[in-house]
């Protein structure tokens, strides 16, 4: 039985297979409409979510399966003090596969050690978000036609941005990748990502504080939100929240084929005026999330059309 806890749980070939399956689903939706008939997905969301939870549920429904679960810790027995381990043991009696989001880092890993059914990490604190990574990879593949030979700017909260950590891990295995890490000094990527992922894989990278200075070099600009919920100190959040705001004036020097990605939700880090720019891909990215999760559910359940 396979789980997806960390993006590195999947080999490059397995990722390619999932992305190719997602592309086939996009082109042949009817073919997959009953693949999961009789199967149940449990969505255990101890932390709020719009896109991830609903895209998982939509994905299972479009595969002909059913969904059950909860959307906040308050509406589960964890509010009575039940442990994550016990919750997962119980739910694995009722469902064939579980997607879990939790505010504590490592909760899905713990769940995978207790569960009798596959666990998908749907985001754990500021740690990892592997299905967002699959979404990002599918979006890059559809927009650029490749996952190699790309200069990728990652901008904003790189310290607590779990989508950033997972995307760096996944892309570090492809050829010709260069990262430009754009963040305030206080929100730089964690040391373990720098030393044990980027440097270990001999990937070219730079850490900068100005988006304007580097935007012209980028093939991909991956924007992130400074997340209020990750700060213990409100004053730090307020000081850093408006560090980077992408608007049309900053895009003047960007390449004409730049792809702007954002895992969403955004607050104000991308001005609404940018939505009409053909380089904005973040709403397409959200749609891709459903297709790639369909492919992932099928893969972990060992199902074929």
């Amino acid at each position, binding site marked *: 039985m396979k789980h997806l806890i960390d993006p590195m749980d999947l080999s490059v070939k397995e990722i390619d297979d999932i992305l190719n399956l997602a592309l086939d689903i996009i082109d042949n939706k009817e073919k997959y409409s009953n693949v999961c008939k009789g199967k149940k997905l449990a969505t255990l969301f101890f932390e709020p979510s719009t896109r991830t939870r609903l895209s998982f549920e939509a994905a299972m429904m479009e595969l002909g399966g059913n969904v059950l679960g909860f959307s906040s810790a308050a509406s589960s027995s964890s509010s009575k003090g039940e*442990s994550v*381990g016990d919750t997962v043991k119980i739910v694995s009696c009722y469902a064939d596969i579980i997607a879990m989001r*939790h505010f*504590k*880092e*490592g*909760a899905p*890993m713990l769940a995978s050690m207790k569960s009798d059914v596959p666990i998908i990490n749907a985001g754990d604190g500021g*740690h990892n978000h592997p299905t967002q990574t699959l979404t990002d990879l599918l979006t890059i593949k559809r927009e650029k036609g490749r996952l190699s030979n790309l200069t990728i700017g990652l901008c904003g909260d790189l310290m607590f941005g779990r989508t950033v950590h997972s995307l760096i891990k996944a892309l570090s295995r492809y050829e010709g990748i260069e990262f430009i890490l754009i963040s305030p000094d206080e929100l730089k990527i964690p040391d373990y990502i720098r030393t044990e992922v980027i440097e270990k894989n001999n990937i070219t990278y730079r850490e900068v504080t100005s988006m304007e200075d580097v935007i012209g070099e980028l093939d991909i600009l991956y924007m992130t939100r400074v997340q209020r919920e990750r700060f213990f100190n409100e004053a730090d959040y307020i000081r850093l929240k408006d560090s980077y705001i992408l608007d049309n004036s900053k895009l003047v020097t960007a390449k004409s084929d730049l792809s702007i990605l954002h895992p969403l939700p955004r607050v104000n880090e991308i001005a609404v005026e940018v939505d009409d720019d053909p380089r904005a891909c973040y709403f397409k990215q959200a749609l891709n999330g459903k297709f790639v999760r369909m492919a992932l559910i099928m893969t972990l359940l060992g199902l074929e059309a």
Partner: protein
Amino acid sequence: MNIDSIQNGIVLDHITAGKALQIYTDLHLDKLDCSVAIIKNVKSSKMGRKDILKIDQDIDMNLDVLGYIDPDISVNIIKDGKLIEKKKIELPERLIDIKKCTNPRCITTTEQGIQQIFKLTNREKRIYRCIYCEADK
């Protein structure tokens, strides 16, 4: 200063100076009824200064704890006053319930009864990371 030789037991030699007390505590040697000698700051031609621990009883020792604290320690097993075995220890690949994750965002800080597991991710720098949150604290 003279410390009697032991007849049956274990001598931990080549301990980095200053670490003997940590080993004494982490191996729970205070719970033993037998004699235990902590010898600090012994002159050493190889190390300059070193610590030595002598345990006057053959006990099951958690070598992972020793390897984590100081992988260069020599473990000498003594029987009938003679050295019968010299165990070489090394950095363990995994630490189970030897240290606790101190990342306040980690699941281990709230989940009851969870095993604290760390894995060795950088042998040269001796970095261990929590398997749950990947913090090295």
